[in-house]
């Protein structure tokens, strides 16, 4: 069985059953590391990716349900050499400890900034309310998202 999908702008075909969670396809078939398995229950946000710009929990999203939609992962935002403003801000603010939650945080932040380019601190906190961080990096993550929003506002 093969399923086709569009990830970070490229058409891909993977040998997976349609009911396979998108997360395993991204990680294991497409070797995209960013989205993480955290709970498999849509409770922690570590697996967050964008589907047509909307944040979804890839751990409970069946790959067969994605269809023609555009899937965007953290890898689709930028690279170490050409970072997206969010990635740049997270590095500048040193907004990670273990970093396991960070990809999901950043994708939720991307979704937030896409609909609200100039969020208040309270907006950022609310926008990331369903993404759990265990290291206590919350303050830095909030600062990084605000910094990215300012940087994006200037360009």
């Amino acid at each position, binding site marked *: 069985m093969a399923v086709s999908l569009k990830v970070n702008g490229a058409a891909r075909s993977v040998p997976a059953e349609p009911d396979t969670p998108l997360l395993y396809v991204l990680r294991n078939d497409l070797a995209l590391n960013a989205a993480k398995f955290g709970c498999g229950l849509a409770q922690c946000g570590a697996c967050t990716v964008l589907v047509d710009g909307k944040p979804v929990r890839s751990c409970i999203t069946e790959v067969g349900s994605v269809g023609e939609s555009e899937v965007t992962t953290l890898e689709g935002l930028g690279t170490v050499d050409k970072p997206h403003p969010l990635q740049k801000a997270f590095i500048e603010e040193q907004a990670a400890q273990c*970093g396991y939650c960070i990809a999901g945080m950043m994708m939720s932040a991307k979704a937030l900034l896409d609909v609200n380019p100039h969020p208040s601190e309270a907006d950022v906190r609310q926008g990331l309310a369903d993404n759990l961080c265990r290291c206590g990096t919350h303050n830095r993550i909030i600062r990084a998202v605000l910094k990215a929003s300012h940087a994006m506002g200037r360009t």
Partner: protein
Amino acid sequence: MNVVVSRREFAAGLGGIVVAFTLAPRLLVETALAQQPAPLPGSLANNRMLDAWIRIHADGDATVCMGKVELGQGAVTALAQIAAEELDLPLARLHLISGDTEKTPNEGVTSGSQSIEYGGVALRLAGAQVREILVDLAAKRLGADATTLTVADGVISAPDGRKVSYGDLARDADLHREVSGKARPKPSSTHTIVGKPIERLDIPGKVTGGVAYVQDLRLPGMAHGRVVRPPQYGAKLQTIDEAAVKAMPGVVAVVRDGSFLGVIAEREEQAIKASVALAKSAKWAAGPPLPDQAGIYDLLLSLPAEAKVISEKQAALPDDVRVFEATYRRPYTAHASIGPSCAVAEFKDGKMTVWTHSQGVFPLRGNLAMGLKLPADKVHCIHAEGSGCYGHNAADDVALDAALLARAAPGGRPVRVQWMRGDEFGWEPFGPAMVIKTKAALSPQGRVVDWNFDVFSNTHSTRPSEPGGNNLLSSWYLADPQPPAPPRTIPQPAGGGDRNAIPLYDFPRQRVVNHFIKEMPLRVSALRTLGAYANVFATESFFDELALAANADPVAFRLAHLKDPRARAVIEAVARKADWKPGEKGDGSRGRGIGFAKYKTLATYVAVIAEVEVDRATGKVSVPRAWAAVDSGQIINPDGLANQMEGGIVQSASWTLKEEVRFDRDGIKSRDWLGYPILTMPEAPKVEVVLIDRPDEKPLGSGEGAQGPAVAAIANAFAAATGKRLRDLPLSPDRVKAALG
């Protein structure tokens, strides 16, 4: 794992560069009979060879090996800063290898905020000696006096402008010798890398989807495994429907050894489906029931305990004192890593290689060898980062699971195993529940003149490093089960359950007793700070109660009982930062409190002031703001130190406000994030940190400095806000409503 700073080898994955060398201290063996080796500080004590730590290559780059590992705390960057500083090499020219049983020094377990103190001193002395050796060689080569030479970026220059590089000297530099311990590190005034907020080496990869974690390893031919856990502790597997599961799509093997049950499949989702089917078909004989949660503290107090007086000061007790007593309790607390534990194992030519996020690859190797019945030299453990662990979670356990499945995998295929969320919560060893009984006397002059502190706790370490058994979960369930190591308490001065039980305050009379309970109703082990979180909560809460009884300001009351100038300095600094007003009062729903501790009573000093808001209708407590001051001696990386303080306070706020493992007679009931909620983004306090740098003091670890002071500050702020004292954690809405009536 390997961190190659230049990234040029990052693409090669986690396997890293292989350099042939020996860790065996050849010279040491030869001279051992003649004389006892001189003691060396820190991690050098057991890793005496210079080239076990640092090697210089023909291109002038250096390989730096560390037994301490990255857990998300920034240790590898900080250790690299120390090495780069002493070597006079830019960070980008260091190739870092950490936590590999065949390549790095054995520094035991990365725990107890000791990486900087033990690993840092080793790299500092080793780096200084390598630099001295290279400078001496350069002096000979250039015919110059070594004291006239200068070093920058791995190039040694004579006053007349002639130069020679480390690469030119690498071949002649004999680093296969013992560390002398006598090399002189650079004075702190000349530091250009240490003490600077260098960006963490691991963060760019983590924010762009680079290979950063053991979870990201994909070896050729790798299969996916899952383990089916029993319904509760000690249950025994009776029957399974193996044939039906074997017939499922992608299933490679069903593996059973006694009550250990696992499955290997081609694809991860196939392994998960097969494990769910296996679990459904499995029939178990129930294990012994767990105790009732409601009676857990009474049960702990009723169990046999070994009592040991760990501190005693005698003085006459005046007879006009007022006596106060209180009991404090802390529940079982989960590590609750965001990512469930994971390992990859490969069994090839009789040798087991395991990629693991264990905190101690060498102790893990020992328990793996025992569990697999292999000689230790046939087990190779390689560290790769995982999700933050905050102590002994399931990282070690899953390594044995992966190894057991890899041993059974057809064709020697590597197997990756990640635990499912419910198993991570249900089977990790929790931070132990604790009870602390305090009793103190206050003189008419408002001084504490007697202090009694009794700690009741299980062990705080059932790590694989414990001798006399196998501490890996699945080893207990094999057909030929291996018993766990007998529980021990970690002795003072660091302490286990009694960590930070001895107060830093100057009391004329005191008695501190550790009641070590061997029987463990729930599986427990090391959670960040061990007993310090609860002991600082109890000490600092009770001290505030005494301050209130003495009608004294909490900050002034602390200072009045403290001589240690560094302790006084952090308290004064945080009071200034938070604009603390002597005698400030809460208003019924809002208030502030302070907490202080010197971690382990011998390391980092931290004082925290927290502000709490209490919703009297719902009982919900929130912490909008916190301030901290920290003195961890010489600061290696100020931003890393601040990050550890901020994180420690937020994590402690989560433990304090929300966390408690739920269980009933049938087993552990906290199995997901709804059953074990943690602090969310809207709930996280804003934190401001004051760093006190002491460049001439030894550098200390900071990962565990803030949690105790933070819980105390929050509990004291709650009391200041409401006038009611909560002595049971967490400060949950039910407790708050009951206390406020």
